[in-house]
């Protein structure tokens, strides 16, 4: 555990229930996770373990049935939709398994997307996005449409997009799951590099082996931390 005693993000006693056809399904049962600034940790679990659900809740995309989320010492669970959106924009970066790029937009435009919802002046958008593409070694492909890129290149664009607003935390949901092992390794190395530069990275994966390569692992099984 890092030296800093105050976690950057804390999910406390999180319960998440789904009501499907009158039956209550408990996806998360009293889960508490702390994420510290600058760490590279992973949330591991099999399909259906609740790892994606906790990531969505930690990433403020979803709300828990009960429990608290504290970000930078502030309780954010009760925030309004608009405030939550702003926090997502400035504090959190997402990398998805299936990249989720806009097909019709170029790599550069995709990276600029979070800036459109930020307070960053428009004349700085392109500069910042290019800087991020340079960081992921994709300067030469920035004008290519996303459907002209390979899987690895797409994921690097997605990482650049997650970094562009300089968020406090990056959540990567199975970022290598849709890539061949060589490309997957390269992407993992990129996360490692980002961590070395001081970024906080949370890897969500079913792959134990991959998780072992991070500093700390939290394992979920049937909605409970084991």
């Amino acid at each position: 555990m890092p030296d800093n005693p105050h976690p950057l993000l804390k999910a406390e006693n999180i319960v998440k229930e789904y009501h499907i056809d009158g039956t209550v399904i408990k996806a998360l049962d009293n889960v508490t996770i702390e994420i510290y600034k600058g760490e590279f940790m992973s949330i591991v679990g099999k399909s259906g373990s609740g790892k994606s659900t906790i990531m969505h809740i930690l990433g403020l995309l979803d709300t828990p049935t009960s429990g608290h989320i504290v970000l930078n010492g502030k309780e954010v669970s009760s925030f309004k939709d608009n405030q939550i959106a702003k926090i997502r924009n400035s504090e959190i970066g997402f990398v998805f398994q299936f990249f989720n790029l806009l097909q019709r937009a170029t790599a550069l435009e995709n990276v600029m997307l979070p800036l459109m919802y930020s307070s960053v002046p428009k004349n700085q958008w392109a500069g910042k996005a290019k800087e991020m593409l340079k960081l992921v070694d994709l300067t030469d492909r920035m004008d290519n449409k996303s459907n002209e890129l390979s899987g690895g290149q797409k994921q690097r664009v997605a990482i650049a997009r997650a970094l562009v607003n300089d968020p406090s935390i990056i959540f990567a949901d199975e970022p290598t799951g849709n890539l061949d092992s060589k490309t997957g390794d390269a992407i993992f190395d990129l996360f490692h590099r980002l961590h070395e530069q001081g970024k906080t990275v949370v890897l969500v994966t079913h792959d134990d082996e991959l998780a072992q390569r991070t500093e700390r692992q939290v394992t979920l099984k049937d909605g409970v931390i084991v």
Partner: protein
Amino acid sequence: MKLLDISNSAIKSLNVNRARSALTILGVVIGVFSVVTLVSIGRGMQNYIQDQFNALGSNLLFVSPGKADFQDDPSKALGRNKLDEKHVELIESNASELFITVSPYVVLGDNVRYKTKSFYGTVNGISYDDEKTYNYELDKGRFFTKSEQNTSARVAIIGPSIVEELFGTKNPVGNSIKLGDDSYQVIGSFKEKGRNFDDGVIVPYTSAMNTFDVPFFSSIVAKVRNTENVDLATREIKIALLKDLKEEDFTVLSQSDILSSIQNILQILTIGIGAIAGISLLVGGIGIMNIMLVSVTERIKEIGLRKALGATQLDIAMQFLIESVFLSLGGGLIGLLLGWLGTYASRTFLRTEIPWWAVALAFGFSVLVGVIFGTYPAITAAKKDPVEALRYE
């Protein structure tokens, strides 16, 4: 996210499905096009009528046969026509001081023939002292005299269209033209006066009645000395004519009566046009809503992604709302352009014009249609749960 950036992004996404966007806006295009074209034609008709009356002056009263209330079959009124010389005298003897002239008017269409050439014109049988009543300005020759009228002389003054068609650049005065079975000597020609007058042939009304075997006048035209006395003169004419005719045998109309009757008809027509346009805009709007809902479903992952990246509900709602407003506004603009082309094309036969309020209305309505029918899809998009949206396959 700024409005300009949202607009840029809206244009891009509409561009992706160009054919679909084009088909979607068709309803609005047709709606706006029909409003603009029909309003401009209505305007053209009003201008046309106004021009006709302006050419005559505002102090003329027309006594027409039958009850002209613009509701009955006009041919019935003509069937009951009893207007003749006696009635002119009745009016004159009743209140002569009110009128400058009271004179018969006979009008009919006929082929005007000169040698081998022929031109379909309007034969106007008027009185010798009516040259000024109708504001005719002679170009060449002279007007006919009282004695020519009394003897039903076959003399004619022809309009510029007839001069051009039958004589070209030649001086028509002194030549002989054929009206019906009779030969008329051209004694003059008049200057351009407006489309409805320029194809006219002016002859003594006595001659017209003779040649064409017409027993009654088409109308009696009274020129009132003082415009302020038009109402009084209308009453006096009625009093005079009721001595011989029944109330349903004649109608006294002032120019403003005729104008307002025609304007009433045009107004009803405009309301009808408005209703048709309204329906087509409604259908167009439903089309836009339909496509926007499809678009929300198609782009559900994009909605999830944008929300994950920090878009607020308002950002997402505005994105879809602006797309639908652009669609509908685009339809409005194309409709307006087509309407303008239609108006321009119809200039050859009508003095059509697009009033500024029709342009404003077309714009306003297309924006309104976009907003009204875009709101529901926009709210649907904004309310999507980001997690479900991201998972959507």
